[in-house]
Structure formats: C-alpha cells, structure tokens
C-alpha cells in the first residue's frame, strides 16, 4: 500500500506519530485521547498490538495507563434520555417561528432602496449629510416585521421580548424589527389576537402597547384579547391590568357588575380595565361599553372552539365572516335568537355541522356564491 492516507478514517490514528507525545501523557490526557478510549472501550481489541508494544517499551507509563483504563472501565456516565415528544414539541415551536419571519431574501429590495438612496445623498448635497443620516436612521428603525393570517388560519408569534401573540384568522400584526433595550415594546394590530405579554422582557422596557385603529392598549405583563375589525373594536382582559388610550375622546357606558345592572356614563380618553372586564365599541359613534364578562368567551378561538353565552345569531355570522371569509345570511325571523354553548371551530365545516346540531338550525352552503344560509329547521316529523 503506497500513497497518501487521505482515505484513512480520522479514527485510526497513526501510532508512531503519537508515540513521542504519549510519553508526556498524564491520566487526563489518555482519557482525552480518542485512540486510547477506543482501545480500552473496545475491550482492548482496536489497535491492541500497537498499544501492547508501546507499553512494553515504556513500563514507566504502565501505572498511568492502568489508572486511565480503570476510570474508563469502571465509571459509567449515562446521559438522561430526553423524551422524543419534548424534542418534537420544541422543534415545532422553532419551526413555526422561523417560518413566520419573512426570509432574509425578501429584504434586498428595501436594502437596495436604502443604499441607492444613501448614494444619492452622498453624491449630492453634502451639506445635507446630517439630515440624510437622520433620514436613514428613521427608515432603518421603521422597518417592520409583518405577520398576517389568511381566512381560516391561526398563527402563534413569539416577539423579540419573549411575549407570545396568537393571531386569529384574517388578521395582521406589525412590529419594528429591531427592538431596543431602552425602547417601548409596541405592536400594531388589525383583526384579532390574544396577547400573553411577558412581565420580564428579554429586551425592551416594561411598557407594552398594542396599537389599533381606534385605541391603544397599554400593559405591563398580562393576558388579553384584542379585536379590531372594521365593524367592531373589543378588548377583553384575562389577567393583569391594562390601560386603554382612545384615539379620540369617547363616551363610555359603564355597566356595573352588581345586579340589577346600573349604567353610568363617563367621558374620557383613557380607561383602566381589570381582569374579567370587556370594553367594546357600541353601535353609536365614539361610544364604548365596559362590562363584566367571562374572558374565556373571547379567547377560546385559540384552542379551536368557540364559546357562546347569549350570543345573538347575527354575531355568529360576523365571526364566520371575519374568520373564514364566508358570507352568512341569517333568516330574519331567527336573527335575534341567542346561542349558548360550546362548538368546535377546527375548520368551517366542523363549525357549521356543530352549529346545526347543537343549536338545531338548518345550515346550507351555496358553493357558487360562497354563502351560508342559516334558517330554522323544517320539522321533519
């Protein structure tokens, strides 16, 4: 056999080359030596002849080798096995997160725009250099991540500070790409999302703000649901404490918890909301209602079911329209019927089947117009 040992596996070590070094070896060096470990752990078969020859030539190393072999042979270091489902669950989280973030490849357009922009400035009016860099800074900090969902899909988003947002169907969440240690945590929402805001942010200041078209929700670490659709804005608090800051001054109709329900009005542009409270836009313009509720009713969509408690059928049709993009027409005679119960919402078919069974309604789908008709069941008996 002539030639190079390029094909030689890394594990079969060149004994002669190592001979010199081995003489200076202590126990810890032998333990760190792959060839030695193989020899001992293979029950003295791998390269045994070489080792025996070397040992005979260097009897002074016998004690050291003996000690190293004793340690390797008699101590068992056994790594605890991690259940496969844990690894898989963690992988799914990572996998879904990296697939929400737009791939870096999508960015060059913006970057190119910036560099061309900057080159123009450099080549142009040098006196405006300061202004140019300010503008660059402004554009840079205004780069947003946008996460959006289609009809019938949900997404879980992990924000840079460690907070988690579950984005409901047909919704969009925006946030600045580079969160700063000294910056407020801010996101912009259209549609519906459930927020689990971490009170100990990995980055950013404690204050966390959700901006919607009509109002801002300010929090310090809590869980709540925000809905900001064209026809309705609604915030429901599960735990913690939040402050609502309306874009305009509004009349708030506060419905007291105690029965009989008393109503008082206040005019304000900020409002503190406590757990179990709901605040939603009313039919009148610039007017909101604040009342006690069961928060689960408004967050159950995350877990693939919907909870109704005296919910008008008309509102159900709005939910289906917002979530699945299907138009629902409800027969006028049952439009005000109230629903109470829990229905699965994994997909629109299951939801419609469940509605028809649980609430005893006739649900028919017109495939051509993508319209769902809900009417009273014709008594067949």
């Amino acid at each position, binding site marked *: 056999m002539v030639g190079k040992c390029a094909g030689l596996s890394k594990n079969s070590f060149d004994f002669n080359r190592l001979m010199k070094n081995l003489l200076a070896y202590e126990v810890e060096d032998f333990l760190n030596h792959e060839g030695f470990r193989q020899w001992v752990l293979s029950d003295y078969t791998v390269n045994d002849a070489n080792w025996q020859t070397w040992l005979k030539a260097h009897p002074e190393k016998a004690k050291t080798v003996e000690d190293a072999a004793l340690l390797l042979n008699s101590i068992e270091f056994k790594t605890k096995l991690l259940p496969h489902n844990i690894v898989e669950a*963690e992988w799914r989280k990572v*996998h879904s997160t*990296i697939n929400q973030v737009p791939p870096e490849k999508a960015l060059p357009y913006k970057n190119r725009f910036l560099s061309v922009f900057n080159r123009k400035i450099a080549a142009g009016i040098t006196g405006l250099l300061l202004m140019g860099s300010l503008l660059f800074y402004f554009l840079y900090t205004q780069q947003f991540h946008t996460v959006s969902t289609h009809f019938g899909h949900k997404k879980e988003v992990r924000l840079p500070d*460690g907070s988690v947002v579950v984005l409901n169907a047909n919704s969009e969440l925006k946030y600045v790409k580079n969160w700063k240690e000294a910056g407020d945590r801010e996101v912009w929402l259209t549609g519906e999302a459930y927020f689990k805001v971490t009170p100990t942010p990995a980055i950013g200041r404690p204050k966390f703000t959700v901006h919607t078209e009509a109002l801002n929700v300010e929090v310090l670490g809590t869980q709540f649901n925000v809905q900001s659709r064209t026809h309705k804005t609604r915030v429901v608090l599960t735990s913690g404490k939040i402050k609502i800051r309306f874009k305009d001054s509004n009349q708030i109709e506060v419905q007291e918890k105690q029965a009989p329900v008393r109503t008082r009005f206040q005019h304000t542009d900020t409002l503190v909301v406590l757990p179990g409270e709901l605040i939603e836009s009313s039919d009148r313009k610039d007017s909101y209602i604040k009342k006690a509720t069961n928060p689960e009713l408004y967050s159950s969509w995350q877990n693939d079911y919907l909870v109704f408690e005296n919910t008008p059928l008309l509102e159900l049709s709005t939910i289906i329209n917002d979530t699945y993009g299907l138009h629902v027409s409800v027969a006028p005679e049952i439009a005000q019927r109230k629903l109470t119960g829990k229905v699965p919402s994994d997909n629109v078919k299951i939801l419609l089947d469940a509605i028809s069974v649980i609430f005893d309604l006739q649900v028919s789908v017109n495939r051509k117009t993508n319209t769902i008709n809900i009417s009273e069941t014709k008594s067949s008996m």
Partner: protein
Amino acid sequence: MLTPSKNTTDDASLWKAFQQSDQQAFAKIFHLYYPDLYNYGTKFIANEELVKDNLQELFIEIWAKRNALGTVKNIKGYLVKSLRRRLLQNLQKIKKQHSLTMEAREEQVLFQLSSEELKIKDEQNEELTRKLRQAFDRLNDTQKEVVYLRFFNNLDYKEISEVMALQYQSVRNAMHTAIKAFRKALLLFVYALLSYSKTL
C-alpha cells in the same frame, strides 16, 4: 461502548447547508444536539422551562443570523458555548432580581448528578456508587463542568476551553483534580483492577 467519533467534515458541510437556508439541515442540527444541550442546560440552571426558552431563542436566533455567522467546524461545541453564555446572562438577571431568596440559590447549584447518571459500571454495590458521587459532589463548579462536558457531551479539552473561556491548561488541571478524586473513590473497586491486569 464506543463513543461516536466526531466527524468534522460532516459538521462543516451540515453547517454550510444550514447557512444556505436549508431547513432540513437546520432540523437535523436541532434534533442531533437538542437533547444534549437540554441536559447540559438543566445541569447549569435547575429550571427546565428557562432552559427550554433559552434553547428556543438560541435556535431561532442562529436561523435568523445564519448568513452572518462564520464557518463552524464543531457545531455542538458552538451551540454549547452559545447556550452557556445565554444561561450565564439569565443567572445574573435572576441573582439581581432576588439576590437572597431560596429559589435563586437552588437554581445555582450546578451539575447535580443522579445515581442513574454517574455510577460504577456493571456493579450492584450501592456503596461504591455513593462514594463515587460523593467524590464528584466535592469537586468545585469548574471541575464538575469540565467532567460533564468531557464525559457526557464528549467535547475534548480544546473544545471545553473554548466553551468555558478557560486556558487549555486550566481545563487539564480541572480534569486532573477530578481524576484524582475519582481514583480515590475507586480504590475499593478491586474487581476492575483485576480484570484489567488479566488483559495485559
């Protein structure tokens, strides 16, 4: 049992594929190293959720920064090092937050090994295993971590010195002390000595 040999060419090409946005390569890296990283992490901070969170952030971050990262010849060493840095930062945060509370102190007990993890091979003698673990417990944190990284994570001294930001010689010295302690505990273990002499 033979320790699986490290194949640096495999690591290098796997890393390269990962850097070229190959999600399969990323998945492979995750599945290959997650269990060891998790075990190491929970030995470093006794808070499983915190370790899971940190690992998630670590993997999400390396994916996000994959283009900016350099070549990595030993992926495991690189990941252990990154995880360790994160956990240290967390540990400092925890210390600041509740400097004197019990929970914080409990989380700081490093590298506690169970009798499942560290024991005398093929030996029913509980007393021997207990002696061995006592010897391990008496080591200082650095020595424990060196032993852990060497024997549980199969990193060599050079890799350990990079992970722990120590001199090569310090790693070797830590191991030397640990070995002396182990050997003392093993003096009772005559059976192994005999079986070894027979083979010579």
